[in-house]
């Protein structure tokens, strides 16, 4: 199951400068675990104590994942995930 993942500039040192990578997983959590297997270290930059890091925004097909289950958000083939750093405190 291929999911397209857009990586922000600040994390591209972990993806060999790739802007877009592919991953797989039935949930966002599984996707991040899969990515961490191939790009070691990326997982801890995204997740902390089993939750999305506060200063990271993640969008599933442009929808803020915090409104659709966070790390438990369900993914399907062809979905697009965008990771962006949040500025000025990020989440409210």
């Amino acid at each position, binding site marked *: 199951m291929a999911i397209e993942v857009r990586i922000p500039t600040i994390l591209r040192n972990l993806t060999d400068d790739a802007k877009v990578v592919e991953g797989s997983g039935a949930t966002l959590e599984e996707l991040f675990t899969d990515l961490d297997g191939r790009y070691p270290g990326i997982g801890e930059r995204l997740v902390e104590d089993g939750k999305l890091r506060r200063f990271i*925004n993640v*969008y599933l*097909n*442009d*929808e*803020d994942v915090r*409104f*659709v289950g966070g790390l438990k958000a369900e993914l*399907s083939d062809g979905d697009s995930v*965008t990771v*962006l750093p*949040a*500025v*000025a*405190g*990020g989440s*409210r």
Partner: protein
Amino acid sequence: MRYDSLLDSLGGTPLVGLPSLSPSPRVRLWAKLEDRNPTGSIKDRTAFFMIEQAEKDGLLSPGCTILEPTSGNTGISLAMVAKLRGYRMVCVMPENTSAERRQLLAMWGAEVHYSEAAGGSNEAVRVAKEMAKENPDWVMLYQYGNPANARAHYETTGPEILADLPGITHFVAGLGTTGTLMGAGRYLREQRPDVRIVAAEPRYGELVYGLRNLDEGFVPELYDESVLTTRFSVPAEAALRRTRELLDREGIFAGISTGGALHAAMGVAAKAEKAGERADIAFVIADAGWKYLSTGAYEGTLEEAEDRLDGQLWA
């Protein structure tokens, strides 16, 4: 239809189906044509309600000066109402808004003060607040925190949509002052507890913004996240692409922030279709495209238009 004056014709805008962009007969998109208001945008409702309330509260009397930070539409609406009611109008807007807006504001007699482009709408708000301090007799209606802004949509936009679309399942609008989503959203939720209220905001980091992005650190006083079911973050490229699709597929010539709302509406439509659910999704066409012609948004390829729009405000 006959009205006693232009202001009396406010609202009552059409809700039109989008048969070509709707995924199926069970999942339908509906556009609320807010460009059919007196000055051509949804902000006429906001301006009229805020001025009426200020008059009732005794804050405004003929000859008063109204001050407002605005990237365009609210200023144009306020300038029109101010002109008819005998007030002087001063706007603060970012210097990178389109030429048409400046001309329109001047046409309706508003004075324009510019704030730095780099600070976007947030900077315009800051400058306006400073000017208000220096001129204590001026009245800042302040659309971001004025309950009459949300009330305009609670009393008019929301009821109009429900009357036209009793089976509404989703309401989608751009997140700027948050007035539309808070006002119409609350009304619709009261009447249809299961309705989903969906916000479309421009993605942070995009140079084109105008619809306020909450992640920039400014949260309008009107904003109450509990009203929203979900939020979409719309890249400038997607907003532009959807604006073009609306024109190509449905013949609707809308402004660019409307492309952002359509993108979110198409997102929830795709989810409903996939889940096999029935959906009637209403979204807001905030204004028409006239004011953005000079930005080049409607000419050439999408890539060319994107380059031309870089650094300009589109909402």
